[in-house]
């Protein structure tokens, strides 16, 4: 681990000011000299491994704005402060009642210890776990642009089948993000150029030929809150996560599903897929396939086919296409059968 300067700004504007002093406009947050740290469960790990090499850390945990640590529930929806810990949100009674998919996605992630440390903003910005990204002796376009991609022809069992490019096939592993993109969440950010709202679906960038550009954020922008609108389909919602072991593992495939049903038939469906794509993945074709249909195994299967119509697999991850489909079918049927 390399030495670095550690600072604890008092409030958001101080943090932004320091960040903008030590970063430039075109710098990616993950490559900048100064980087924010919240729970540190992702960033500190990657610093130890030499994958992230900031020389200045701005610790957000002392920011004094109380809203950063609050979950506010209103008729408009739920607003999560950026520093709320995963565990708090997962256990929050109103979150569980109004948006089970959110509580589930957090409860099924990581371990109890990590959920107690990790913040919600840090969670959505977590970086890929691609084995070749994590170890600096491999070529990796995301870590060192233009160096190549060792995973492409390597051991790519956990890699993405949706949204991949010729430069990078790394999976976005987070769970919470799938619930957020399904429910049309919005992220609030503050930077040197002011405050703004970013639709969650626009936060993450597809790898294309620039896999090192991961999000829409500037290096001096702090996420302050995540807002989830109140919608009719949030209550009948569920997160299904399939993994190699029962707990403490990333998804091989997952599905976030929210349904508004009229009897048996689908008034509105919201679907996101995890573990299979390079970014949080909204499956709009699958949603459209279900519109006004009776939800049964056949229509669920048709939706799953639509969701994976463009899937491309490689040597070790071909099973994910079929697994992803079945995960979605199961999630749809289980969500249909929820008692709400």
């Amino acid at each position: 681990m390399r030495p670095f300067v550690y600072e604890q700004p008092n409030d958001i504007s101080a943090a932004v000011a320091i960040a903008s002093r030590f970063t430039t406009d075109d710098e990616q947050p993950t490559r900048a000299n100064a980087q924010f740290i919240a729970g540190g469960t992702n960033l500190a790990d990657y610093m130890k491994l030499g994958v992230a090499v900031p020389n200045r850390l701005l610790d957000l945990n002392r920011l004094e704005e109380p809203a950063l640590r609050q979950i506010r529930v209103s008729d408009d929806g739920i607003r999560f402060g950026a520093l709320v810990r995963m565990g708090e949100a997962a256990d929050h009674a109103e979150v569980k009642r109004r948006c089970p998919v959110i509580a589930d996605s957090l409860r099924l992630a990581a371990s109890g210890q990590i959920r107690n440390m990790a913040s919600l903003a840090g969670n959505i910005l977590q970086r890929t776990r691609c084995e070749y990204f994590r170890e600096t002796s491999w070529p990796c376009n995301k870590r060192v642009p233009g160096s190549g991609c060792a995973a492409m022809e390597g051991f790519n069992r956990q890699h993405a089948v949706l949204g991949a490019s010729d430069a990078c096939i790394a999976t976005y592993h987070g769970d919470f993000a799938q619930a957020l993109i399904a429910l049309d969440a919005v992220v609030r950010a503050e930077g040197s150029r002011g405050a703004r709202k970013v639709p969650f679906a626009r936060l993450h960038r597809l790898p294309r030929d620039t896999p090192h550009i991961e999000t829409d954020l500037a290096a001096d922008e702090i996420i302050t809150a995540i807002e989830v609108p109140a919608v009719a389909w949030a209550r009948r919602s569920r997160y299904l996560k399939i993994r190699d072991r029962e707990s403490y593992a990333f998804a091989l495939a997952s599905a976030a599903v929210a349904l508004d049903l009229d009897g048996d038939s689908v008034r509105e469906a919201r679907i996101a897929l995890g573990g299979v794509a390079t970014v949080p993945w909204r499956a709009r074709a699958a949603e459209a396939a279900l519109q006004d249909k009776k939800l049964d195994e056949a229509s669920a299967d048709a939706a799953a086919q639509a969701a994976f119509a463009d899937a491309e697999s490689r040597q070790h991850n071909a099973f994910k296409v079929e697994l992803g489909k079945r995960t979605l079918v199961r999630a749809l049927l289980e969500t249909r059968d929820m008692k709400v």
Partner: protein
Amino acid sequence: MDAAAPKPGENQGEPLPRIDARLKVTGQAHYPADLPTANIAYGALSTSSIARGRVTKLRLDDARAVPGLLDIVTYGDMDKVEKPKFGNSGATSIGPLHDRTIFHDGQIIALAVAETFEAAEEAAQLIRAEYEEEKPTASFDSPGAKTVDAAGKNPMHKEDVKAGNFDAAYAAAPVRIDARYSTPTQHHNPIELFSTTAFWQGDQLIVHEPTQNVTGWKVELARQLKIDPANVRILSPFIGGAFGSKGPMTPRTAIVAVAAKRLGRPVRCVTSRMQAFGTQTYRAETRHRIRIGAGRDGRITAFAHEGWEVTSRADAYVVAGTSATGRMYDYGSVLTHVSLVEADRNTPGYMRSPPETPYVYALENAMDEMAVTLGMDPVEFRRINEPKVEPIGKKPFSSRSLIQCYDQAADAFGWAKRDPKVGAMRDGDWLVGMGCATAIYPTAAAPCAARVRLTSDGDVRVQCGSHEIGTGVRTVAGQMASERLGVPIDKVNVEMGDSSLPPAPVSGGSISTASVCSAVLKACDAIRTKLSVGATAEGRPLAGSHNEELDFADGKIVAKGGASAKIEDVFKIMQVGAIDEYAEFAPKGATPGALKKLYAGQPEFHGGDHDEDSVKYAFGAEFVEVRINRYTREIRVPRIVGAFAAGRIMNTRTARSQLMGGMIWGIGQALQEATEVDGRYARYVNRDLQDYLVPVNADIRDLQVILVPEVDHAVNPAGVKGLGELGNVGTAAAVASAVYHATGNRIRDLPIRIDQLIA
């Protein structure tokens, strides 16, 4: 009594809590890298990022510029010491800093030493190597892989066992199977990281390192450093998991010792989890072909087991589990053959039941396939083929309670309720499958020394250079002394893990309890004899009683008729303050030089298939239920039952704990564990516990261990069969059978994951 402390059955000892349990759970047990050491410097390894070639240049300038850097030990600096040797005490013959040749991924290229751990790490990361790269051979099927016969390449495997005429019997058999199986690369990943702390006091070298073999290491390290073994002391009082990984010494130990000498300061090097994959040993991947021929009545007439094992180019590491699989059932004819496949890899090494885990997995999966082919219940199929003598040398088993294990485990599991039809059992969206398999592990023992002292106050000190790797050997050694000397366990203090104590063999091969307890027993009996003589002489309290009739209990010597004398009083009468006995135990069949070899760190193993009179094995039967989701095919294991018979059980709590840990590991081996090797570069890919999966609590639901009573006086004086490595043998085959039963998919390549079931 709760499940963790099973009520002792016949020939089973009390479930005493571990005598070091409190120290461990309160964090007071100092593991070797925790030991506070004054003026310490920290070392960090720099390792190769290629698997084959030469280091042409090492750039050290950036590393040297790190504030706090003290030294870099690299090429040239080890020239005055001997290269390591491959064997029981040495993991590999590769001397990484003796030679610029790179033999494998993650080979040590330098040790950076600094004032702080952080500076050492930073410097190590800044060391840059330039290589002349060659295309490496990763594994089976890789270009350049060289296959050779294993027999004779390693003392562990002298010849391929066989019996009768397999070819003829197989050709004539009305029912036959011929199938191939494989097991993946695995790394031990004990939670305690590997570390070396070394310092010199004059010409005395002291090394704190977690090891399963203090005596062997003392001798081997002295050989490498060209010093007198009497000047080397290895300390390892607590070990946070070993599983074989801390048996043979790796090259790091001598490198750290050299660094400490150069600096004139203690040096501590803790290897990172990632670096351990290349700098320590591992279980290499194996392949198997099994052919079984049987009559329609289910009697096996022909059995062939061919195995292929990966090893390094430098060393012929062999496991050859055919010795056990070839003796498992009443086969009629047996043919076995083991091949080694040399690749550009680090040298593999012992990992919990090294031969049995892969080989018995293949055998038992094949047995289940054969039972299915015959349309026979798999338990019944094994019953039919239960041997009277082992098929290779026609020797009897010293004891064999396999059928009792099957009966008790089947009963507890509810095997009778299983519908044998594939895919017939369901619970909602979950397919239910049930399977079973045999566990076997050779019972061996080795020479061992121990010193036991009993004071007139009734305090006992047991000293033995064995190792508490988590098995509970410290507790059972104390228990043996407590039982023999009639003093409560809390008066017994047990010292282990120090090469200055009486030597014990390497803690491997499940020999520790048998060997250590036999030596402690012998020392205790010598103390008893002295006290008995003291108590029964003319005019003494128990005059007239015979020594053999005396019992030692509750601090008293009790004669047959009920007369007794307090041990305390006997000491007074004898006018002694303490009796101190040093005993050396040698198992039956030991050669005349066996004890000398013990002191030289080269213990002879006896038992298993080595003895003239009988073969000695412990057995078990495991039953597993799996549930597989009908859509997504993930596999869960809600229930597992294992019944095991292993001679005298010293302590039902520690025995259960070992077997439980083994079964849990077996589930992990079946469903999760695998080191992935990138075939293009011969490099390990998933080098941490995020991607190298082992079971978590949520994976293990209802687990039951049954300790089947068994008496075996032939194995050793303590009557103990080792069971530390028994529990994880067979488990993976039982899971594979259950998966077949649930789905009709016969998975032959471990681990069994969704990938294989979803297609």
